[in-house]
């Protein structure tokens, strides 16, 4: 009987302490972060959205989109999406999850390499940047490597009647470098770059 009473007492403490902690950790705390975020970092807190001239969202600078035309820099292969051929589905982020000995991975990479060489007028044995042939982790990677971007410059310049030098300057402008010059790897943000080429991002 005494044990039952003490277990009952523990249950009572559990319920009340849980409620108090829920209010503090899941009520007050996230709302404080919401308030501070909206006040000091409204762009970031709301998804780093790019708006068009009429104020409608057209992209987030953090989330990749598919650009397949010659006049755009093409993003990395993406495995986001559920089975369909729509890539960069931001409601279904994720990688291919293929292991190193996967036939499906082998076939997909072979196809991408062939397509990449053809699109960018490369030699049949030219090596292709890994990020252009292999899918990202999130399926929404907004970056491509600098090497990848420079290989695409001649194609994009031709499609847009621009000089390659002008285009390279733009690539450089929209390259996110290493943080503090040390952390991470540099990457070209293709959302910013492609929208800037269309005059939709400044």
């Amino acid at each position, binding site marked *: 009987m005494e044990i039952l009473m003490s277990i009952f007492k523990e249950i009572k403490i559990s319920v009340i302490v*849980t409620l108090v902690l829920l209010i503090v950790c899941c009520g007050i705390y*996230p709302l404080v972060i919401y308030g501070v975020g909206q006040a*000091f970092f409204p762009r970031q807190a709301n*998804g780093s959205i790019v708006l068009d001239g009429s104020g409608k969202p057209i992209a987030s600078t953090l989330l990749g989109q*598919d650009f397949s035309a010659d006049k755009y820099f093409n993003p990395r292969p993406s495995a986001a999406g559920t089975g369909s051929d729509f890539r960069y589905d931001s409601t279904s982020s994720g990688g*291919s999850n293929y292991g190193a000995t996967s036939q499906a991975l082998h076939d997909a990479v072979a196809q991408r390499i062939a397509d990449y060489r053809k699109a960018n007028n490369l030699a049949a044995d030219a090596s292709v940047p890994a990020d252009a042939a*292999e899918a990202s982790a999130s399926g929404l990677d907004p970056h491509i490597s600098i090497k990848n971007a420079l290989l695409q410059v001649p194609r994009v310049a031709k499609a847009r009647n621009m000089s390659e030098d002008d285009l390279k300057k733009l690539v450089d402008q929209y390259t996110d470098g290493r943080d503090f010059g040390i952390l991470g790897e540099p990457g070209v943000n293709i959302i910013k770059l492609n929208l800037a080429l269309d005059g939709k991002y400044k």
Partner: protein
Amino acid sequence: MNATLGWTQLALYLGLLILITKPLGLYLLQVLDANGRTWLDPILKPLERLTYRLGGVDPGKEQHWKHYTISMLIFSLITMLVTYVILRMQAILPLQHLFNPQGFPAVPDHLSFNTAMSFTTNTNWQSYSGESTMSYFSQMVALASQNFFSAAVGIAIAAALVRGIARDSMQTIGNFWVDLVRITYYLLLPICLVYAIFLVSQGMIQNFKPYDAAALTEKETIQVQKTDASGNPVKDAKGNPVMVPQVVDTQSIPEGPMASQMAIKMLGTNGGGYTNANASHPFENPTPFSNFIQMLSIFSIGSALTYYLGRMVKNPGHGWSVWAAMTFLFLTGFFVCWHYETVGNPILTQLGVDPADGNMEGKEVRFGITNSALFATITTDASCGAVNCMHDSLTPLGGLVPLFNIELGEVVFGGVGAGLYGMLVFVITAVFIAGLMVGRTPEYLGKKIQSFEVKMSMLVLLVLAMDILGFTAWACVSDWGKAGLNNNGPHGFSEMLYAYSSVTGNNGSAFAGLTASTYWYDTTLAVGMFIGRFLMIIPIMAIAGSLAAKKLVPPGPGSFPVSGGTFTLLLIGTVLLVGALNFLPALTLGPVVEHFLMWSGKLF
């Protein structure tokens, strides 16, 4: 790829980790003392007292280990129930337009059970895809609450065990409620407040608006399965699904209260992502800087706890010796993973992928090889389980590192609290082995290690191995097990082995190709998590209680010193030996054989 910068980043990481270990450890000494004083007392003391008063907790009264354990179990059960109920009811809770603007339906029962178990046990295995399953309320309350609670419980257990070691001739080991409340208020909340705001500044979202529909620059036409009026797929005469074209002209951009949840996800080594892609998603880990701080926060409390241990047992050298053993294991794992990811996949190199780039399948450009390998090692050394690259797509031996890290028991800094109490089991085993070698009664910090403590330690180690290997074996020979595989050949086996290792170790990362959101997987994985968490904690609490009650024996010339190089080496040896004996056969069947097959160009 730049090797010099890779080394610089590693040095920076390790340097900062050493720098924060002592200050945070000193702070822990105050937080984990019911009468401790911190500079936050003026703000938090009233809140702490109010919580005790409402709950009817007497903060001055300590508990016997059995009482402490029962309080912890009841608390875990109640909070798990809260999580489960919220997930099941997310579609009918009030304020739907604010907290569930996407109108997500109730989470299915087996998935709710799996998720509630997963978050209660600090596993945070994700059988679901957050951005298309969970309402804002579910994320913010059902899941984030467990990020706080399960972390606080882990630290509380570690503190209780350390008290047991430090005390002598006593029956009590602290008060669970006091530990829980103080850890949450004084440790987790203040750090998260600053941390979450930092994450927002880097680009992480924190809002309550519906998903944005961004008009795509290039519209796409995709083939989707045709469904009839009641939502069932239409099939043609041969039974194949009928496909119809559909134009996609918008990208649905996920929103919601992410930053507040991600801060505690990392600090509390929970690892459950807001989105399916976890910390590789550009919202969840926007910059290399946010990535660096996230990696640091995963190890921070685990590292500080070693300092806490040293100070509590009045032998700071012991704390640092444990720290050194952990750091050695961490660096070894990282170098192996880093090396094999840099070398890349010879099969793809042969097709024409630039060999200088390493293996980029399942990795993000902004993190590259170095930070992906570093994150993968850290998240599995600790029981975090957040991922910034897809572990399923690591090279075979690169992927062996996270897998083996988990199987060692995640004792390398480890989950908050869980890492330390797991490592102390190995310490007891190591001391026991040393005692056997010199033919004396083993002693640990002036206490005789007797058959009871050794039995309990062995119980912990055997339960973990049986949980992992037993369930993996079962899945291997079952149709439900093989049905979930995304890869064939040895890698398919690795997917199953990784899944049960991950849930048993309460890690939560995955070889994520495995489709685990089925009844069989959800249920067996949830049972695996339960065993891995609570059947480990109970013997450990029994050790704590037994040690606290023992009398102190003055150190003699035959006492084995638990600080210094010999002890560190012995500890490393014990961890590796136990891990290798238990898991080398299974690892050989998976990643090791896959490595050789990859180099011979075999495909599955």
